[in-house]
């Protein structure tokens, strides 16, 4: 028969690598196409170690051509008409190659089918390297050449980008790899970051996530956390500027936390988990580097707290209590971040309570001192309940809501003990409240989340910023996207 490829506008391209047994196997097929008069270009990705075939092989060890053609597998045979790709076949399926080439008796002696090998463009880390090399123009950020002889990590310090710990230098390749973690356009704007109210886009978040040490799969969580702190209710400007201790704390609720390997168990609030450590840090770096929020500048914290390096953990879940995201009105199947203007961790030790009432009283006695024992309806708090404490409530059939209701009852505070001068302390609320009974926390100001290892009858209070609610900050929950 007369193959259709004899028309001058039809060409073929084959992309191969010598390391691939299938590419070696099908070499006679390529030879036959050339012998039949096909216009065939053969690109090799590694070495030209193939038998002589009568035409020069094309060197694609730079992978530039493979990248442009978006090759996933070798061998790939492409049909090009009028300069445009009209068809492609990957691996070796004899019938398909016969169809696409129009050579009906192509490679009759070869097996009918043999899968190909991965293209070198798909090797680990390679897609990002190739994107940085061949599509670097798609990035928006300014490129900076570090001076010769200067350690890039030291250079990052010198620019003032660091929170005090070493940063991963944000090379285009690393940023491209980070951006693989999201479907969103790098140029998509997320809002204005205080205090400078500078606009932040996805790419700038990715650059700071690289510096923080994040993996690409953490990026959607970082993006959600940035979105959450930029909401008006969270009041990031005031939280940064305050002389108070607080900084943004991130709780991840839902399966996404587990999928990216976050810790909600042993030492959940501590060190040692990459996702916990770097997601919280990335958020702080965005505030620092995009917003210009720096300690001693607009950040006026008298003491701050160690969580201002990073404060991020995942919620532990079981069937007994509703999750934080569901309490905030999200679907159980969703994954969310909740941001909270949090201080440090205050332990609650109770190794003896075996009934809910006793344990609630322990919690209430410890919660009273949030901010100051005489302060009411000011700071919010998160109570982090560990498994050994949670089981006391589970065994008695108490829901989380019931615990909160009982705590609210136990945390009604007598005005006569709270007013300025009472108990020998000048600190206190105005004397007009002397005869009133006041709640320690504003409506919705106390939240419960579960985390922690299976041993230890210790829970934790994370107190919040003294300016809560409309006056200052409210916890904000945002669903994690893709």
């Amino acid at each position: 028969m007369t193959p259709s490829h004899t028309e001058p506008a039809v060409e073929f391209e084959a992309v191969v690598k010598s390391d691939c047994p299938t590419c070696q196997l099908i070499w006679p097929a390529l030879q036959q196409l050339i012998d039949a008069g096909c216009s065939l270009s053969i690109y090799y990705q590694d070495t030209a170690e193939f038998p002589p075939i009568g035409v020069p092989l094309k060197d694609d060890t730079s992978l530039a051509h493979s990248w442009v053609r978006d090759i996933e597998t070798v061998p790939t045979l492409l049909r090009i008409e009028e300069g445009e790709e009209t068809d492609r076949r990957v691996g070796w399926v004899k019938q398909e190659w016969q169809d696409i080439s129009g050579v009906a008796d192509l490679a009759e002696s070869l097996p009918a089918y043999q899968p190909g090998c991965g293209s070198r463009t798909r090797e680990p880390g390679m897609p990002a390297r190739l994107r940085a090399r061949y599509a670097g123009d798609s990035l928006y950020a300014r490129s900076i050449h570090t001076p010769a002889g200067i350690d890039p990590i030291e250079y990052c310090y010198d620019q003032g980008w660091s929170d005090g710990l070493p940063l991963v230098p944000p090379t285009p390749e690393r940023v491209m790899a980070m951006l693989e973690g999201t479907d969103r356009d790098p140029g998509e704007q997320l809002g204005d970051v205080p205090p400078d109210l500078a606009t932040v886009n996805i790419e700038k978040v990715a650059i700071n996530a690289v510096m923080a040490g994040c993996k690409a799969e953490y990026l959607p969580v970082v993006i959600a956390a940035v979105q959450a702190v930029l909401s008006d209710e969270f009041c990031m400007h005031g939280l940064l500027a305050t002389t108070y201790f607080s900084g943004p704390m991130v709780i991840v609720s839902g399966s996404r936390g587990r999928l990216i390997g976050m810790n909600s168990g042993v030492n959940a609030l501590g060190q040692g988990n990459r996702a916990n450590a770097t997601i919280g840090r990335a958020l702080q770096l965005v505030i620092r580097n995009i917003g210009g929020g720096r300690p001693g500048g607009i950040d006026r914290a008298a003491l701050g707290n160690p969580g201002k390096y990073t404060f991020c953990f995942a919620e532990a879940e079981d069937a007994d209590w509703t999750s934080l995201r569901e309490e905030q009105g999200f679907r159980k199947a969703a994954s969310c971040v909740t941001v909270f203007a949090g201080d440090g961790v205050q332990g609650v030790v109770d190794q003896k309570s075996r009934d809910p009432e006793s344990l609630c009283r322990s919690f209430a006695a410890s919660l009273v001192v949030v901010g100051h024992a005489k302060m009411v309806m000011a700071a919010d708090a998160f109570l982090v309940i560990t498994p050994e404490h949670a089981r006391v409530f589970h065994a008695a059939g108490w829901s989380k809501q019931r615990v909160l209701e009982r705590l609210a009852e136990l945390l009604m505070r007598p005005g006569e003990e709270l007013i300025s001068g009472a108990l020998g302390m000048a600190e206190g609320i105005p004397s007009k409240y002397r005869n009133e009974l006041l709640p320690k926390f504003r409506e919705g100001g106390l939240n419960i989340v579960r985390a922690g290892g299976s041993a230890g009858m210790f829970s934790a209070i994370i107190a919040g910023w003294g300016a809560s609610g409309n006056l200052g900050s409210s916890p904000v929950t945002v669903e994690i996207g893709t």
Partner: protein
Amino acid sequence: MTDNLLLDPTSENTAAQLRPRAKPVSLEGKTVALLDISKPRGDIFLNQIGSLLATQGATIRRYSKPTFTRPAPTQLLQRIADECDLVLEALAD
């Protein structure tokens, strides 16, 4: 991978250079805004400042932010700029 090419992690903004307005030689006939950021006891400080300025011939106008935790609304800043020659802000409590 080489580390000598980096992407800028900052906003890439440069602060605009603004020249401060010349200081007035006298407060006579000037309108002075006293902006209370709503911190406790800021009003006590501003009351005191207000009476001192009034003795120097200034007209005092009082303004306040809804909450000290958020930047002043743009509308408020525009009103102050529109109605006053000078402004004093009470920051601390």
